C-alpha cells in the first residue's frame, strides 16, 4: 500500500506541476489549465504549476473583496470554497496523504536517519488559527489606504510557496534578485525550520500549520470515502498506534481530523479486520495484513 501511495503522491506532484517548458520560456505556465484547483498545497506561482492553489486563490479573492463589490462583481470565493468543499466532502484528508506535494516533501525528509520526536497534540490546533486568521480574517480586515488586504498566509508563512516558487523564480529571473529583502529571508528561514523539523518529526507542517489540511480535516468524520472502524473486531492491541505517522489512536478517535488517511493502520497494522474503507456507508473489502501471522 505504501508503494501505491508513494506512486500516487509522485503522480499528483507531476500532474499539478506539469509545465516543464519554464526553463525555455523563463516564466510560469499561463495556460487555461490554471482554472483547475490543485487538491493539495501547491503554489500557483511555481513555474511548473499547472493548477491554482486554493489557499492562495481564496486569499487573493478575499483581500480584493471591496474592489470587486464596488465594481459590481461579487467575487467572494464561492468558486474556490465550493471546489475545496467538493474535494473535502469526497475525500477528506485523503488528499493530504495521497496527493499533496508538500506532504511528500516532508515525508522524504523524514526518511533521513536521525532521532525522531513527537509533536505535542496541543500544536495541532494551530492550523485552525492559521486557516481562520491568516487565510480569512486578516486578508479581509487589515487593508491599506486603498482598501486592499494582503495574502497573509502566503506572504508571511507558506514554506511550500518558498520552496516551489520563491527559490525557483529567483533562479529563473535574475532581475528579481535585486528585490530580495527581509521578507524573503524570513520565508527562507521558515522553510529551513519546517524542513529541519520534518527530519525530526513526521509531517510537522501538515499537523501544525497547514490551513488546507485543517479545512479537509473538518470533513474526515463525514467524507464520502473514509476509514471505518469495526469496534467489535478491534482488540485494542495498539498496533495501529505504532504505525500512524501523525500519532493518532484511530481505534479511539475514528474520523479524527488529524488522520491523513495514509491507510498504514489498515494495511500494515490491523490483523483483525477492524479497519476498512467505506464509501458513503458501503464497506469496501478490508485488507487484513497478515492473517497468517495471527494464526502463527
Amino acid at each position, binding site marked *: 500500500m505504501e508503494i501505491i501511495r508513494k506512486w500516487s503522491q509522485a503522480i499528483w506532484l507531476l500532474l499539478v506541476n506539469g509545465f516543464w517548458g519554464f526553463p525555455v520560456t523563463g*516564466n*510560469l505556465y*499561463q495556460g*487555461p489549465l*490554471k*482554472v483547475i484547483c490543485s487538491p493539495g498545497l501547491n*503554489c*500557483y*506561482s511555481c513555474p511548473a*504549476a499547472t493548477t*491554482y492553489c486554493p489557499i*492562495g*486563490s481564496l486569499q*487573493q*479573492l478575499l483581500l480584493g473583496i471591496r474592489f*470587486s463589490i464596488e465594481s459590481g*462583481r*461579487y*467575487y*467572494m*470565493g*464561492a*468558486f*474556490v*470554497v*465550493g*471546489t*475545496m*468543499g*467538493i474535494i*473535502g*466532502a*469526497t475525500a477528506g484528508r485523503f488528499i493530504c496523504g495521497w496527493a499533496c506535494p508538500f506532504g511528500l516533501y516532508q515525508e522524504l525528509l523524514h526518511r533521513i536517519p536521525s532521532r525522531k520526536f513527537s509533536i505535542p497534540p496541543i500544536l495541532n490546533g494551530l492550523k485552525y488559527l492559521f486557516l481562520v486568521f491568516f487565510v480569512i480574517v486578516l486578508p479581509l480586515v487589515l487593508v491599506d489606504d486603498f482598501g486592499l488586504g*494582503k*495574502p497573509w498566509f*502566503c*506572504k508571511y508563512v*507558506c514554506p511550500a*510557496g*518558498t520552496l516551489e*516558487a*520563491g527559490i525557483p*523564480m*529567483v533562479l529563473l529571473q535574475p532581475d*528579481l534578485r535585486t*528585490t*530580495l*529583502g527581509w*521578507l*524573503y529571508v524570513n*520565508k*527562507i528561514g521558515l522553510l529551513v525550520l519546517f524542513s529541519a523539523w520534518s527530519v525530526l518529526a513526521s509531517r510537522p507542517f501538515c499537523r501544525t500549520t497547514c490551513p488546507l489540511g485543517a479545512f479537509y480535516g473538518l*470533513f474526515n468524520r*463525514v*467524507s*464520502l470515502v473514509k476509514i471505518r472502524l469495526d469496534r467489535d473486531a478491534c482488540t485494542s492491541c495498539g498496533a495501529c498506534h505504532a504505525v500512524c505517522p501523525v500519532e493518532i489512536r484511530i481505534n479511539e478517535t475514528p474520523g479524527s481530523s488529524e488522520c491523513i488517511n495514509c491507510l498504514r493502520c489498515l494495511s500494515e497494522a490491523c490483523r483483525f479486520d477492524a479497519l476498512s474503507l467505506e464509501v*458513503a*456507508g*458501503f*464497506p469496501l473489502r478490508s485488507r487484513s495484513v497478515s492473517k497468517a501471522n495471527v494464526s502463527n
Partner: protein
Amino acid sequence: MKRGERSIRRTPLVLLALFVLLWLTGINLGEPGRVLEQAKSICLACIGIG
C-alpha cells in the same frame, strides 16, 4: 453483512450537493476568470519577493 453497513450515509451527499451549489454560484458570478487571471501572474509578495 450487518444491516447498518448497507445503509447509505447521506451527510456526505448533502455536503457535496451544497458545495456543488456554491461552486456553481461562483461560476455564475464569473469567479473562474478572476482565479485564472490571478493564477497566471506571479504573486511576488506571496513568494516572499518585493
